[in-house]
């Protein structure tokens, strides 16, 4: 499989941040925003394993925190922890379909959001836990599952299918 280079990853991260902070809140005001930055690092953890996933989660999380201007490191820590857990189960995962990555991204999102809310709550932010567990976290998980399916197909399945087709045609 042709791997993503650093430029592609940086560009992907930037687009994810732009969509999260400037596009979705304008197009869908009052809606829950998917965490595309985490989604990207979760998919990378599923494909590449713990190392790249955690590094990407740290960079993406720090960028999110820097744009927030507060609780610097909270997103990074939560993203890293979730990406690390995903990386632990990565060797046992069947990656050739979309169901496994979708389930893993959904579960990872729940872990990430729980860690993040707990951390910022510990440092003084008010969290409405009923809304958090009743609305925000489930919706972010669902939206991330959809985004995760697209990303997994785009980064992993599509290039493999193409490669397979190419090798069949060459034979």
């Amino acid at each position, binding site marked *: 499989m042709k791997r993503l280079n650093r430029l592609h990853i940086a560009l992907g991260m930037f687009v994810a*941040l*732009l969509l*999260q*902070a*400037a*596009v979705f*809140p*304008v*197009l869908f*005001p*009052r809606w*829950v*925003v998917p*965490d595309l*930055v985490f989604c990207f690092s979760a998919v990378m953890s599923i494909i590449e394993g713990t190392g790249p996933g955690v590094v990407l989660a740290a960079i993406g999380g720090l*960028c*999110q*925190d*820097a*744009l*927030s*201007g*507060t*609780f*610097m*490191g*909270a*997103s*990074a*820590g939560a993203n*890293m922890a979730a990406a690390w857990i995903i990386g632990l189960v990565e060797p046992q995962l069947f990656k050739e379909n979309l169901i496994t990555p979708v389930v893993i991204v959904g579960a990872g999102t729940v872990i990430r959001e729980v860690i*993040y*809310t707990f*951390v*910022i709550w510990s*440092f*003084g*932010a*008010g*969290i*409405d836990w009923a*809304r*958090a567990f009743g*609305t*925000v976290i489930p919706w*972010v998980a669902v939206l991330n599952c959809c985004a995760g399916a697209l990303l997994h197909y785009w980064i992993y399945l599509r290039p493999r299918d193409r490669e397979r087709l190419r090798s069949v045609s060459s034979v």
Partner: protein
Amino acid sequence: MNQQPLSKRRIVVAAICIILLVCLIYFTAKDRDRLSVAEKALREIFSPIARGASKVSREISSWASYLISIGETKAENEKLREELDALRYENLQMEEALRENERLRDLLEFKESLGGRAVAARISYRDPGNWLYSVAIDKGSDHGISSGKPVVTARGVVGRVTSVTRNTSTVILTVDSRSAVGGIDFRSRDLVLVEGLGDGSGLLHVRPLGADNDVQPGDIIITSGLGGIYPKGYVLGDVISVAPGKYGVSKSAFARPRVDFDRLEEVLVLIDPIRGAIGEMQE
């Protein structure tokens, strides 16, 4: 055999990471006058692009409403519909320009009425997560803005600046759970504390400070000017409900801000506020 030292090293790295992150979060959880170079650089680069993306999104949104409106008029005569569509599109563009014009005029009139020094700014982007209610604006320390400055619109208080770079500022909105503003009930003159609920409802929690108070639904809550950040007389919101507190001793109320935070586009940062909007009027 090699697993043991490797896992030990991993534990040490993880522990160092956790300690570093906890320290970082602790030191950045409060308002900051100075941001790190990396934060400044990222925000300076991101802000204008995000502003452009927001503008494009708004265009797309208005195009979507236009397309929906086309769908609703399918039954009409083809020729008339074409004319109507053209006129509608023209009208939409004019309406958009008119609205922007109105908003900016209101802001300008409001700015002139304040007497003090104020800077008009546009919203660049919103907090990328779902938990914090803050926005970034396209003006910063180069325009005289510093941490702690109040941010308002003609409709009322928006929030306060928590951190600045040269060309951007972060504004924590009054609906955020970390926001607390001293207020006065415009009718009864009771002192209250107005806190953001931060639960997505967009409401404010109004806590009267005295035991003997007369806060009623429909009352307007304005800033008291006592906290040292917000000048007196800016509208915080309208009381929509009043309920007895936990033990029946105190009362607590909820207010709806007049500012529509979901559709906020332009704001005023009060650099050197002289007086409030309606507080002086009453006095």
